[in-house]
């Protein structure tokens, strides 16, 4: 999700200038293996990027944004902040009903900005509205009313008023108020407390998207930026053991900003699924029988992964400098039967290309977490082809000629050793 959000936020050329990457989450898959580095390689960022995993609280995303501001102010050309969250929730719980999985990416820079960072105010305090300890799967929450009265209703107005004081502004000058929470009426109640019109309160998207944890403030900010007019002020709150209040102001450039898929596009692309058993399976909420074909050893030899990381993480292929043929994977000898030159291939990025399905099937025999396993041969616009797994296939809609794009996904879980490996899958465009 972090990779997908980042690719939506950045064109390939922009990625060469990203000098810092902050990946914020409370559900990083690895506690010790830098998750932000996996993302940076998937984006083919320069090796010199300052990468950092942020976490520990629901405001990790907004705090990471503050770090990104500092990074840019101290000389980074641009800094990418990603909030990404996949929380597991108890069956039948309130959290199950309100949560969603999402990622949002914001690029902070100093040139041609869509919105200026104006100022921020933040407070820290150990108010434990909910928590999740290492080794435990699910959050534990305290009473909603207490969370609202002692938490949000006290901390947020404090931070906002201090911020407005610092910035020399009045509340009436705020055009968009972003306060994500699991309580539907909460942001309106806080706005009322602040004497801010309820029409300024940004929709929390609980019903259409679900609350996406650390990602949510960034997601709502991204959604707001899609429609903010030049000059409008956007106030973003991150809440968790304290409170971050960040103030942005849209520039004139926002009017002509290139259209991205964005939050709206992703919400439009929805594919409803009423298969609760599938939801439970994907969230490891049931002890599923995957059949004997799932028993095979899924060892990833780290030496082989490292040696091939450009191919695996970045989907880099090769382009023959002699005949121009693109090939995947990169190889010693050019695959073009008319060429066959040795050691002539330069790294060639393919991940951003649109491909076409050359052949495909839905395989009901091989093991898959979500059978049938769609896979086939994809040809890429600028050259090259590969046999790959397909994903996000709506049955009956895939055929030879269907345009596809590449997505960075989990390829396999190694339950025996506690590992997961990633690779790219083709999904209908």
């Amino acid at each position, binding site marked *: 999700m972090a990779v997908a959000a980042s690719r939506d936020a950045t064109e390939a050329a922009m990625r060469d200038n990203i000098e810092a990457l902050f990946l914020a989450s409370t559900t990083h898959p690895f506690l010790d293996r830098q998750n932000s580095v996996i993302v940076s390689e998937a984006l083919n960022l320069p090796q010199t990027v300052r990468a950092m995993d942020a976490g520990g609280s629901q405001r990790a995303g907004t705090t990471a944004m503050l770090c990104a501001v500092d990074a840019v102010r101290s000389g980074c050309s641009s800094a990418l902040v990603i909030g990404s969250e996949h929380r597991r929730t108890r069956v039948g719980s309130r959290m199950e009903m309100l949560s969603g999985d999402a990622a949002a990416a914001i690029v902070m820079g100093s040139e041609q900005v869509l919105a200026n960072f104006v100022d921020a105010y933040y407070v820290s305090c150990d108010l434990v509205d909910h928590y999740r300890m290492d080794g435990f799967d699910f959050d534990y929450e305290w009473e909603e009313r207490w969370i609202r009265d002692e938490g949000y209703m006290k901390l947020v107005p404090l931070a906002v008023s201090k911020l407005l004081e610092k910035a020399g502004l009045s509340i009436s000058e705020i055009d968009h108020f972003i306060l994500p929470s699991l309580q539907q009426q909460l942001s309106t109640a806080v706005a009322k407390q602040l004497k801010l019109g309820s029409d300024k309160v940004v929709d929390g998207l609980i019903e259409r998207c679900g609350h996406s944890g650390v990602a949510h403030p960034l997601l709502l900010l991204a959604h707001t930026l899609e429609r903010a007019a030049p000059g409008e002020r956007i106030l973003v709150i991150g809440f968790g053991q304290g409170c971050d209040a960040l103030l942005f102001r849209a520039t004139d450039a926002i009017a002509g900003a290139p259209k991205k898929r964005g939050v709206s596009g992703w919400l439009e692309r929805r594919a409803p699924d009423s298969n609760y058993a599938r939801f439970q399976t994907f969230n490891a909420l049931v002890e599923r029988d995957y059949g004997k074909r799932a028993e095979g050893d899924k060892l990833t030899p780290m030496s*082989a992964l490292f040696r091939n990381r450009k191919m695996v993480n970045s989907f880099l292929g090769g382009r023959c400098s002699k005949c121009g043929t693109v090939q995947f994977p990169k190889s*010693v*000898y050019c695959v073009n039967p008319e060429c066959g030159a040795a050691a002539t291939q330069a790294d060639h990025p393919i991940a951003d290309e649109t491909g076409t399905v050359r052949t495909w099937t839905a395989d009901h025999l091989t093991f898959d977490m979500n059978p049938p396993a769609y896979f086939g041969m994809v040809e890429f616009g600028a050259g090259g082809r590969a046999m790959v797994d397909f994903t996000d296939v709506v049955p009956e809609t895939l055929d030879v000629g269907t345009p596809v794009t590449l997505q960075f996904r989990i390829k396999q879980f190694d339950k025996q050793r506690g590992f997961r490996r990633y690779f790219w899958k083709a999904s209908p465009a």
Partner: protein
Amino acid sequence: MASGIKDKIVILGMGCSRFGERWDDEPAQLMSEAFEECIDDAGISKNDIEAAWFASAIDSVNVGPSALPLSMALRLPNIPVTRVENMCASGTEALRGAAYAVASGAVDIALALGCEKLKDTGYGGLPQRSRGVTNDLHYPNLSAPGSFAQLAAGYRAAHRIDKHDLKRAMAHVSVKSHANGAKNPKAHLRREITEEQAIGAPMIAEPIGLYDCCGVSDGASCAIVTRPEIARSLGKQNLVAIKALQVCVSNGTEVGHNSWDGSHLVTTQIAARRAYDEAGIKSPRQEISMTEVHDCFSITELVTMEDLGIAPQGRGVTDVLDGSFDAAGKVPCQIDGGLKCFGHPIGASGLRMVYELYLQLQHRAGPRQLADPVLGLSHNLGGFPFQNVAAIAIVGQL
């Protein structure tokens, strides 16, 4: 009446990659490294190769099954490519396939390439793997050093050899190989060791210590073979011909019948006899100039000297300690450093052995060059002393 392979096949070219912990290289890179040297030596183009044999033994942590890995890595021109596997004797099997294809007249020029990428295993030694469904039900929980340690026990008992003398002879074997390997830029291990270091090294499987074992490494080696007249027409000089190719496989007698005393390798003895007949050799100790034998463990090399009829039966220890198989000895063994210094990328080893013999016979072995080699013998052994595959190749001036 079959007449054998003697002088029907010559080596047109050979290549060998650097052996070692090639962390940053895919099998394809190892194969092309060996192949580019080989095709350059042969002076032909890839499209002249009409058939190929690919030796790779452990596909679970390696290149994957079938001959596709070789054909795809080198982009061979849709020729027949066959994958062969006979455990550690696979390399010689690849050569055998290529040689027989040319000798039969089916093709003019054939390639034999062995490659093994073992260093993705993730731990030292060979990967733990199944031995076969039924075998797994009753085989002991063995390792390779443990299996060859059985040979040490049997040999010592049969010839009533003092424990310390055997240990010293085993150490001498490794010291000698390291002295040779130190001169070989393609070897993995290139420093000399002392007898004290070898004897004092940690025990792996009684009496085999760390310095009695070859290591695990990555590598590839290959040969292109043809008939003598084709080689001559291409301008090849100092032709090296195959004099004999013999494979002998256990039939279960050693491990099942009380007639075998555990002191020698039945298959090596039989393969050697047949190889000498095929090559027309009457006294191996006098006529063989050099040997490259399967020194997976130093005890194996020691016993192999007897099994090849080069050392007298029961006299292997004395012969070794006398320096008969050192570089300056009567019949130098492992002049390139052997498995001991190269490590053992399984499919590649048999061809790496022939590579050195070929270089020696062509007088291209640099600082390792022996004065006047005439005949070289390679011995490639897969399996365990109590059940195995022995493959012998004899090469010499045409």
